[in-house]
C-alpha cells in the first residue's frame, strides 16, 4: 500500500486533509441550505399570516410543513451522495489539477512491487502545489453560510415591514367575544331602548326624548337608573345592537332569554315607581340614544340598527291600560325603519323591518300588545353596518356624561375603540341582583 512508503504517506495525508475540507464544506452547505429554507418558510408564513386570508395561511402552513419535511429528507440524502471517500477525493483532485489519474492510480496502488511506482510518486509530488488542499479548497467556511444571515434579514424585513391587513371583522370582535355579563347588561339596555321607543312614539320628537333623558338623569339617585341606561346606550351607540347580538349569539340561548324575560317581568313590577319604564315599559333611554345617534351621525346611517328592539316581547307584562295605541306603535316603528325619517333613530335594514311589522300586527290584533317575533338571525344581517369603526364610542367612564359634555369630549383614537366595549358596564344597585340572578348557574 502506498501509505507504507515514505513518499506515499505525504500524499495520503494530504488527500485526507483535502477530503476533510471538502466534506466539511459540503456539510456546511447542506446545513446552510436547510437553515435558509426554514427561515424563508417562516418568513413566508408570517407574511401570509399578516396579510392573507386564513385559508391561505392554512395552505401555506401545510405547504411549509411539507416543504420542511422534504428539505429534511433531501439534504441528508444529498449530503450522503456528495460525501467524498478518499478515492473520490483523489479522483476529484486529478480532474481539477490535471493530474490525469495519477493520484487515483497511486492511491489504488494495484502493483505494490512495481518498478514504475516511483515515477508516479515523483510526478505527484512535483505537482503537489496544484492538488494540495490549500489550492483546491482554500476556504474552510462555505460561502453558502452567507445565506443564513441573508435569510434572517429577509425574515426581519418581513416582520417589520409587512403590516397586518385591516379586517372587516375587527369591529365585531368586542361584542362577539364579550363575556356573558356584558352581554346580559347590553341585552337589558336594548330592552330599555325598546321601551323608550314605545314611550317616545307618542310625540315622535327626538328632542323631547333627549330632554327627558337629561332631566331624569338630573334627578340622579335611584330614579336615575333608566337615565343611566339610556345614557349608556346613547354612549355605546352600537353597543345596544351588540348586546342584542350577544344575547342571541354568545349567551342567547333559550334559557337565557327566558331568564331575561322573567327578570324583566319582575323588574317592571318592582321598579315601576322609580322609572317611567315601569309604567309604559321603558324609559327614555332608548329615545335618548336615538336622539344622540341623530346628533352624531347622519340619519339613516344604520349605525345603531338593533338597539331599540332586541326584546320587544318583554313589553308583554305591561297592563293593557299602559299600552300605547297600535297606530302610535306603528308610527314609532315607521320612524325607526331606517328611511332617514324624522326620528333619525338610524334603524335600517333588516332590523328596521322587524319593527315595522310587529306594531302593525298588534294594532290589527287588538289593544293588547303581544310579543314581537324577532328572528335570531335578523341582527346578523345588520352586522356589517355595525362593523364600521366605532369612532363615536367612548370609554365607559363617559357613559353618564350629558350630551353637552359629550359633545365637548374629543373623539377617541381608533385603537381605543374596541377597548370601550370590553369594559364592564355600570349597573345600578337594584339591577345588580337581577343580573346576578340571570347569570347564576342555578
Amino acid at each position, binding site marked *: 500500500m502506498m501509505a507504507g512508503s515514505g513518499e506515499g504517506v505525504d500524499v495520503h495525508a494530504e488527500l485526507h486533509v483535502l477530503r476533510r475540507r471538502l466534506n466539511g464544506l459540503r456539510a456546511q452547505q447542506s446545513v446552510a441550505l436547510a437553515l435558509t429554507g426554514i427561515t424563508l418558510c417562516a418568513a413566508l408564513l408570517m407574511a401570509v399570516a399578516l396579510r392573507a386570508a386564513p385559508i391561505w395561511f392554512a395552505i401555506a402552513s401545510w405547504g411549509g410543513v411539507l416543504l420542511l419535511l422534504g428539505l429534511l429528507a433531501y439534504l441528508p440524502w444529498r449530503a450522503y451522495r456528495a460525501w467524498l471517500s478518499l*478515492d473520490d477525493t483523489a*479522483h476529484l483532485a486529478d*480532474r481539477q489539477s490535471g493530474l*490525469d*489519474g*495519477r493520484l*487515483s*492510480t*497511486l492511491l*489504488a*496502488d*494495484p*502493483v505494490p*512491487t*512495481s*518498478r*514504475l*511506482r*516511483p*515515477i*508516479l*510518486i*515523483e*510526478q505527484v509530488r512535483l505537482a503537489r502545489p496544484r492538488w494540495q488542499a490549500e489550492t483546491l479548497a482554500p476556504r474552510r467556511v462555505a460561502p453558502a453560510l452567507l445565506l443564513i444571515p441573508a435569510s434572517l434579514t429577509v425574515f426581519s424585513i418581513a416582520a417589520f415591514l409587512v403590516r397586518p391587513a385591516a379586517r372587516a371583522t375587527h369591529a365585531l370582535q368586542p361584542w362577539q367575544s364579550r363575556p356573558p355579563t356584558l352581554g346580559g347588561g347590553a341585552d337589558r339596555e336594548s330592552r330599555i331602548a325598546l321601551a323608550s321607543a314605545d314611550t317616545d312614539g307618542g310625540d315622535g320628537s327626538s328632542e323631547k326624548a333627549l330632554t327627558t333623558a337629561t332631566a331624569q338623569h338630573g334627578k340622579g339617585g335611584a330614579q336615575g337608573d333608566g337615565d343611566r341606561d339610556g345614557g349608556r346606550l346613547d354612549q355605546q351607540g352600537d353597543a345596544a345592537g351588540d348586546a342584542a347580538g350577544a344575547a342571541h349569539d354568545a349567551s342567547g340561548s333559550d334559557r337565557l332569554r327566558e331568564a331575561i324575560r322573567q327578570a324583566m317581568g319582575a323588574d317592571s313590577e318592582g321598579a315601576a315607581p322609580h322609572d317611567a319604564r315601569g309604567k309604559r315599559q321603558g324609559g327614555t333611554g332608548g329615545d335618548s340614544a336615538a336622539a344622540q345617534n341623530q346628533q352624531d351621525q347622519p340619519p339613516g346611517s344604520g349605525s345603531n340598527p338593533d338597539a331599540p328592539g332586541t326584546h320587544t316581547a318583554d313589553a308583554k307584562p305591561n297592563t293593557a291600560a299602559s299600552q300605547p295605541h297600535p297606530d302610535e306603535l306603528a308610527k314609532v316603528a315607521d320612524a325607526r325603519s331606517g328611511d332617514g325619517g324624522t326620528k333619525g333613530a338610524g334603524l335600517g335594514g333588516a332590523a328596521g323591518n322587524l319593527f315595522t311589522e310587529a306594531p302593525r300586527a298588534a294594532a290589527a290584533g287588538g289593544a293588547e300588545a303581544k310579543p314581537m317575533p324577532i328572528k335570531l338571525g335578523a341582527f346578523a344581517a345588520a352586522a356589517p353596518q355595525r362593523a364600521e369603526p366605532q369612532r363615536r364610542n367612548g370609554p365607559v367612564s363617559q357613559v353618564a356624561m350629558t350630551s353637552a359634555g359629550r359633545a365637548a369630549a374629543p373623539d377617541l383614537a381608533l385603537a381605543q375603540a374596541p377597548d370601550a366595549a370590553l369594559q364592564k358596564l355600570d349597573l345600578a344597585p337594584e339591577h345588580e341582583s337581577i343580573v346576578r340572578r340571570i347569570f347564576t348557574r342555578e
Partner: protein
Amino acid sequence: MSDQPTTPPDDAADTDGATPTIAPGTRVVPRTTRSAAARPETRAAAPPSSAEALVGDFADTFNRIRNEIAKVIVGQGEVIEEILIALFAGGHVLIEGVPGTGKTLLVRTLAQAINLSFNRIQFTVDLMPADITGTRMLLEQEGQRELVFAKGPIFAHVLLADEINRATPKTQSALLEAMAERQVTVAGATHKLPPPFFVLATLNPIEMEGTYPLPEAQLDRFLFKVVLPYPSAAEMQRIIGSTTSNAAAQATAVFPPRKAAARLEELKALVREVLVAPHIEEYAATLVRATIPRGSKFAPGGPLALAADEHIGRYVAFGSSPRGGQALLLGAKVRALLAGRAHLTYEDVDRVAVSALNHRLVLNFAARADDIDPRALIQRLLDAAKRLHR
C-alpha cells in the same frame, strides 16, 4: 541487460527531452538525474531515475524496432505500431489484408528486427495438425529403435500462419493450445514453447471459396486484429521503386542474438507493471460489456454505465469475452509506456479498443446483409463512452 544504470552519451541526448538512442541492453538514465546518480551519497534516491530509465528504455527499444521495420515496409505505420504493441503485450495478431500488401514481408522483417527465430506455415486444406505441432517419429539409433518427437514449425519465437483460414478447423485448432498456453501436447507429452512465442496469422478477405472461417474460440486467442489497407499513392510509388531495384532494404537486429528473447521478455514484464487505477479498469469493463447485446441469451445482468447502443443490439449476435478486456488493458499499458507514463488513462484504452475488440464481435445475418463493419460499431461505443471520461 546490465543492472547498473548507464548514462546516455551526450551526443545521443536531445535537448527537447526525446529518448536518446543507445546500445541495446543498457539502462538509460535521463540527463537531468545524471549528476545526482553519479554521487554515491545520492544513489539512495535513484529509484525514480531508475524507473524513468526503464520507461525510456522501453520506448527507445520500441521505436528502434519500428524504425527497422519501416526500412523495409513502406507506410503502414499504424499497423506496424499495433503489431509491436501486441508483441510487447504478449499477445498474437491476426492480420487481414488483400494479397500483395506485404503481410508476409512485414512479419519476416519483424522477426529480423528482433532477432528471434522465425517460421512460416502456409495453411492449406490438406494441412494436418501434426504438420504444425510436430509428431513422434520412429528412429533407429545404435541398433535401437525409439520414438522421438520431431518438433514442428510451431516451435519458433515468431510464427507466421499464412492464410490461416484455408486450413480445416481441425488444423486451425492445433494452434489453440499453443497460442493460449504456450505449449503443445503430442501423444500425451506436453512440450513447452520457447518464450517469447508470437503468432501472426494472416487472413485473405477475398477468395473465400474453399476457406474455413476461424471459429470464435480461435479468434478470441488473438490479442489484436489489424487490417492492412492498400498503400497510398506515394507509398505505392516507393514500394514499387524499392522492390524492383538491386538495393533491397534489410532490417538490422535491435537485440543481440543470444539475449533477444530474454530482453523481449523483460520488456514484456515491464508492461505488466504499469499501474492501473480502478476507474480505468471499470472503464475497460464497461466497454467490453457494452459490446454485448442486451437481448442476448448470455447478456449479463445489472446496470450498465453505458447506455445500450441500438446498433449493437441490431447487428451483434455475441459480444466480447473477458479476453477483450484483458487485451484492452495490456495494449493500453504499452501505450502508456510509450507516452512515458507509469499509469493508464482513458485515452490509452480508447486507442487500442478498435483493434482489441473488433474481431470479438460476432455479427449476425442483418449485419452481413447491411455490410456492417465491426470497427464502426466499436467506434460508436467509444464516442458514446466519452462522457465517462470524468
